[in-house]
């Protein structure tokens, strides 16, 4: 049961596809800063001079790529270490299409397999269930 491989895949009666992931680590979210620059919108800003474009691109790379990446590189080992010490288990259901949806349940090591089975069975019937021994945290 790898972090990047779904533990179960489910298709609902209406055809929605769900992947269920089990992990002990809450991955840090990708949080972008605001550089004030949107790629592709350069030509809609009438007052932007040619000299400003490189600075805006650098600012965009800094706040949207480098800072979030640095944040994740710092937080990821902490999250992994915390997850390994904890008996808490995260079960995430991801529906990548037609609209991306991510549902989260929290449970413990003891109930992990049963809770996963019940969630998968519920989704297979088109229902979001909250099995005993788990907490449904809603959509992420």
């Amino acid at each position, binding site marked *: 049961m790898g972090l990047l491989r779904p533990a179960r895949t489910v298709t609902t009666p209406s055809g929605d596809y769900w992947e269920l992931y089990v992990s002990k680590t*809450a991955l840090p979210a990708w949080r972008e800063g605001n550089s004030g620059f949107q790629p592709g919108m350069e030509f809609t800003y009438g007052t932007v001079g040619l000299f400003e474009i490189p600075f805006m691109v650098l600012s965009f790379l800094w706040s949207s790529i480098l800072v979030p990446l640095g944040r994740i590189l710092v937080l990821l080992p902490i999250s992994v270490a*915390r997850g390994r*010490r*904890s*008996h*808490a288990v995260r079960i995430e259901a991801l529906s990548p299409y037609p609209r991306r949806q991510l549902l*989260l349940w*929290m*449970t*413990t*090591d003891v*109930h992990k397999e049963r809770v996963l089975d019940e969630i998968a069975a519920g989704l297979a019937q088109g229902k979001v269930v909250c099995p*005993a*021994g788990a*907490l449904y*945290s809603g959509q992420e």
Partner: protein
Amino acid sequence: MRFFRSGAPAARLGALGREGTDAYDLVDRLPRGQARIAAWNAYVCQTYADKLVDACRDSHFARSDTAALVRDLYALVPVWLERAEGAGAPRDLPFPHWHTPDRCWEQLVGMRETLEALRTYLAFDLAQTGGDEAELESVDDSLETVASLWIRRPPPELRSGIGEALRRGLDAAYALGQRLAAGGG
């Protein structure tokens, strides 16, 4: 590190509860009715505050939200005791709750031990009055939920879920105790 923490020393908080120790036995001495309901309310407030303080004894320090709730609970005890002894005017005072969803470990321990103590009292009271143990169902549901999620170092999502289950259980126990104290089965 204590210099940077906001809150109160557990020993100082515990001292606030000395005036209310009568609450532990008064409820058993009163006949069923309004006075006994007030004594039950005093008993719950005293028990809850004492258990929260006890849970903080290892760290010798209570977080500021714990300290605030403990003070509110201890402040209610003499009010309810006066009412139980017929001295205070009838009042409808709400049972104090936390103002935030995030519970720390000590708070969860205090809440769980309170709920278990109230459950024991209520089961005994039901047995004495010939009541139906099924009335404890919502309290037992909360305790079962809590037991199934109880692990060391729970993450915030679990702590908030456990705290919510305990809050529901405490509300249910408080209300059931009032009904029994009034003489209802």
